C-alpha cells in the first residue's frame, strides 16, 4: 500500500459522511494528494478498495479534474495563471521567464525534481495579476525581478 494507515483512516472517516459511495472520491484524493503529491493508477486502485467504488469511476473523475496532478511533480509546483486578466498583465512573459530561468518547458519538471511549471486558469486573484501559485501559496503582482527572487529563495530554502 502507498497510502499510509493514517491516510486510509482519514479517507474512511470522510467516506461515511456520504449516502452515495461515489461522493467520497474527491475527498479521498485530497487526502491522497496531501500525502503523495499526485494521484495515479496505483492510487486509484487503493482508493477503490478503501471506498468500495470501481477503479474506473475513480480514474474518470481524476482525469476530469485537472487540478490533481497525475504524475509525480517537483517539490514546488509553480502554477502560473494564464487567464484573461493575468494574460493582459503579462503572464506570457512570466511563463517565458520561468522557462528560461528553470530551463524547462511548460508542463515539465526540473532534473533535480525541485520545480514543476504549469499554466492554469483563473485563480481568482485578477486584481493582483499576474500571479503564480506555489504549492498552497499565492504570489501576486509579479514581475521578472520578483520572480527571480521567488525562485532563488525557494532554491535557498533548506529541507
Amino acid at each position, binding site marked *: 500500500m502507498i497510502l499510509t494507515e493514517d491516510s486510509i483512516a482519514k479517507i474512511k472517516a470522510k467516506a461515511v459522511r456520504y449516502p452515495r459511495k461515489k461522493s467520497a472520491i474527491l475527498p479521498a484524493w485530497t487526502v491522497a494528494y496531501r500525502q503523495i503529491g499526485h494521484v495515479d*493508477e496505483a492510487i*486509484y486502485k487503493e482508493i477503490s478498495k478503501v471506498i468500495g467504488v*470501481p*477503479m*474506473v*469511476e475513480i*480514474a*474518470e473523475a481524476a*482525469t*476530469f479534474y*485537472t487540478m490533481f496532478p497525475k504524475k509525480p511533480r517537483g517539490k514546488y509546483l509553480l502554477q502560473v495563471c494564464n487567464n484573461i486578466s493575468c494574460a493582459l498583465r503579462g503572464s506570457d512573459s512570466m511563463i517565458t521567464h520561468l522557462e528560461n530561468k528553470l530551463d524547462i518547458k511548460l508542463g515539465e519538471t526540473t532534473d533535480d525534481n525541485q520545480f514543476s511549471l504549469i499554466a492554469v486558469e483563473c485563480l481568482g486573484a485578477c486584481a493582483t495579476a499576474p500571479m503564480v501559485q506555489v504549492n498552497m501559496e499565492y504570489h501576486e503582482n509579479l514581475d521578472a525581478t520578483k520572480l527571480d527572487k521567488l525562485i532563488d529563495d525557494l532554491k535557498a530554502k533548506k529541507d
Partner: protein
Amino acid sequence: MSEAVKKDQPKVSVPTVTFSLDGQSVTVPKGTTVLQAAKDVGIHIPTFCWHPQLKSVGACRMCYVEVEKMPKLMVSCMLDAMDGMVVQTDSDQVRQGRKAVLEFILLNHPLDCPTCDKGGECDLQNLTFKHGVDDNRFDFKKARFKEESMTTTFDDKKIGPEIVLNRNRCILCYKCVRANKEAFGEYDLGAFERGNITQIDAVPGGEVCNPFSGNLVEICPVGALTNSDWRYKIRVWLTKTTPSLCNFNSSGSNIDFYKEDHQNKIFRVTSRTNDSIDDGWISDITRYGYQVINSADRLQKPLIKKDGKQVEVSWDEAINFIAKKYNDIKESVGRVCIGGLISPSLDNRSLYSFSKMIRTVCKSNNIDFRGDYRMLPNNPDSPFGVLRSQPFSIAEIDDSDVIVSFGSDLIHEHPNEYLRIRKAFNYTQPKIYSMMPYSVKSADVANIEYVYTPGTDETAINAICLAGIEENVVDASMATEYIKHVVPSTLKDASALCGLDEAELKILARSIAEGKKITFLVGEIVTRSKARDIITAALLNMNKLFGLSSKGQISILARYANSKGAEKLGILPDPIAPIKEALKNDFEEYPESEPRNTDGMMAHIRKEEIKGLFIVGSNPMMLYPDKEFIKESLDKLDFLVVCDLFETETTEAADVVLPLAGWAEYDGDYVNLEGVCQSAKQAVKPAGESKAAYEIVRLIAEKLEHKTFDVESIDKGVEACLAIDTTIKLPNEFLDIKAESEDVTGEFSHPIFIIDDAHHCGHLTEKAPSLNNFTAEAYLMMSEELAAKNNMQENDPVRVESEVSKLILPVKISESLDSDVLLIPRNFQSSPVTSLCMRKRRIDRVKISKVDE
C-alpha cells in the same frame, strides 16, 4: 422510470396522460417520455444517445421536438409527456435545430466514411444525409487524437481483445460506457478527461474484455468502436442477413448472421432484438461463436478406421460400413445391442430422428442426451425430473419482487437471465439473493450473497426452511410435518453444517414467505451434482413449505440450446408417460428393452453387453467428469460411430467419423428454456460434405430398410411431442432428506468445480479465434487470499493433483472468489480437466503446489 420497463410491462391501472403529437392525440401511461410515446405510435425521432434499455441522459440533443408554450426546443428523451402538451416532431424549427446539432457534432468528426467500417449503417452518416448538412462554418483545425503509428484521421486503439476505438470519430453519446456499467455491471470502460480531449477508453491498466463487450460496438452510433472481427472484411451493404439463434445458451438469443452471396462464409453476428428473451443484448459467446462454423478445421469427409488409421471415404462407403457392422453385431450376438448419445444443442428434427433410429431400428432404450452429468437418475419423475419440468418465463423476472438464484453462476450459464435480473435491479429493485458454494461475480446484484460449504447444498436449502419455521413465517402445522422429514432438524445444526449465518438465512426465509411474486432459479451446481436428486428433493420441500410455486416460478434451468427440446421429445431412456404415449403412436413399435441412461450404457458397455454406440455432437472424452472411466468404457466397444464438426478425442476413438453440419448450415427448430420453440434459418451451405444429423440418421436408417425417416414424418412426430404439456405434478408430501456428508481426505483438501469460461461454452468454442482472444487456455482460478497464502502470482504454473491424475495450470486470480474453492474451465482440449474427477465423488478435491522453474 425507464422506457424499457414501461414497454415491457404495460401496467393496467396506472394513471395516463393525453397529449397532442404532430396533431394526433396520444394517451400514454404517466411518466412515459415524449420520445417513447412517439416510438409507440410509429413517429420517428432521430437519436444518438438514447437506448431502449438504458436510462436517458440527454447527451446528444438530437431528439429535439418543439413544444407549444415552451420557449426552446426540448430533448424528447428527457421530457415526460404531460396532459395537454402540444408537440411537433418535424416542424421547421425542429429541423433547423437538429441540423445545428449535427453541425455541432460534426465539428471534430472526421469525414472518413469511405474508410470507416460503420459506413452504410452509421446513424451519423444517415442523419447527416437526411438533414442535408453539407457545410461547416468551423474553419479551425479539428481536434485529433493520434496514436504513434497512425496518420490523419486514424486513431486505432485496441481497447479490448475484440474492440478497436477511434476517438476522433466518437461523438460522446456515452452509450457504450452507460451500457457497460448499467446494463452489464462491468467496469472496464470509462469516459476520461474533459473538454476537447474527452475520450472513451479502457480502464487504466486494463482492457475491455467483459463477457458482453461486443454489444458496445453494436450500439455505438458511429464508427468509434469497431469489431476486430468485422473490420475491413466487407461492406455491410454487400451482406445479407439470415435470422438465427444462439447455439450456446438455452434462452436462444435471437441473432442475425451476415453473409455475402458469393462466399460461403459468415461475416458476423448481431442481435435481433427480442424483448421477451434477450432485450437486444447478446453475450460474446453468442456473437463470436459463429466462427466455429467458419473454422478451417471442420471435418470435410467421412472417415473410417482402417488398420488402426482413420482414412477419408465417401458417404456411401461409410454408410455401407455402418450397416455391415450393425448386421455383424446383430448376427454375432443375436440381437442389436447398440446405444446412442446425442448433444442437446442439436435441433428438434435431429434429436427426434436419432431417438427414432435408436428406438425403432436398434430396438433399444439406450439413449440419452446428458453426456456430461454424473450418475444420472433413470426415473423421469425423480425429484430432479419434477423440478426440471416446471415452467419458467424470462419476462416474469421483470416483475418479480423476490429473485433467488441457487447454484448458478448466472453470467456463465445464463447470460440473458443475468442481464434481465440486472435490469430489475436497476429499475424495479426486487430483493435479490444468490446462493452458491463459492462466491461469483453474478452476485453483484444480490442484496445478500450466501456462500455455503461445498457439498452441503441440501442442507443450505433445509436451513432456509428451518429459518422460516423459527421466524414463524410458514404454516405451523406444515412446519411440524416438515421437521419430521429432515436431518438436521434445527436451524442451529443446519446453519453450522452448511456454514451460513442464521440471521441472514432468516432474512431470506422472510423474503420468500412474504414475497408476492417470486422467481427461484436453480443452476448447474445442482444439475451436475451427483446428489442432484437429494438437492432437488430439498428444493421441492422448500417449495411446498413456502407455497412458492403458487406465487411465482421455481425451476431448474435448462442449460443448452435445446435441452428443453430434448426433454420434450423424449431423448431420455424412459420418457414421462404422455411423451412415451406419443412416441408409441408415432413409431411402428416401441422397444420393450430396459431403459439405460449414459451411465447405465457405460456400465453395460463395460460388461460387454452393449457393443456399439452412436455419439452425435457430444464429446464425452472431454466433458464427462471422469476421463479415465469414459476412456476405458469407449475402448471396450466393438463399434463406435461419432458425428461431430471437428476431430475430437472422442472421434479419435471412433471406427467411423461422420462430418456434422453446424447450426448455421441448415434450418432447425430449437426449444428454449421457457419451452418456446424458435427457428434458425440456414445461412450458409454445409462445410465440405458435412450433413445435418437428421440427414445422417436418415441415410443410416434407410440403408437398414427403415422408411419413415423423411423430414415430413419426423416433423409430424416432433409436432405431436411438442404439443404435450410436460410439466410434472409437484409432490404432495414432504420428502425425506438426510444431509449427505463426504469425508475430506487429508491432503486433497481444495474443492474444485469444473466451470465454463466466461467466453467459452462446451467443446466447440475453442474453434472461434475471437473467443480465444479472450481466453485461449485453461487456468486454475483461485481467490486472492489463497494465492497469497501459497505464494502464487497470476500466471504462475501450478501442479493440481487429485487422487487419480494431475495437471499443470497457470494461476488466475479472481476478484470475486473468497474461499479455498478452485475453479477450472473445461473448454480446452489441451487441458483435460475432467481427468481430475472421479465419478463416485460428489465434490472433487485436489492439492496444489507451485511448479519450480
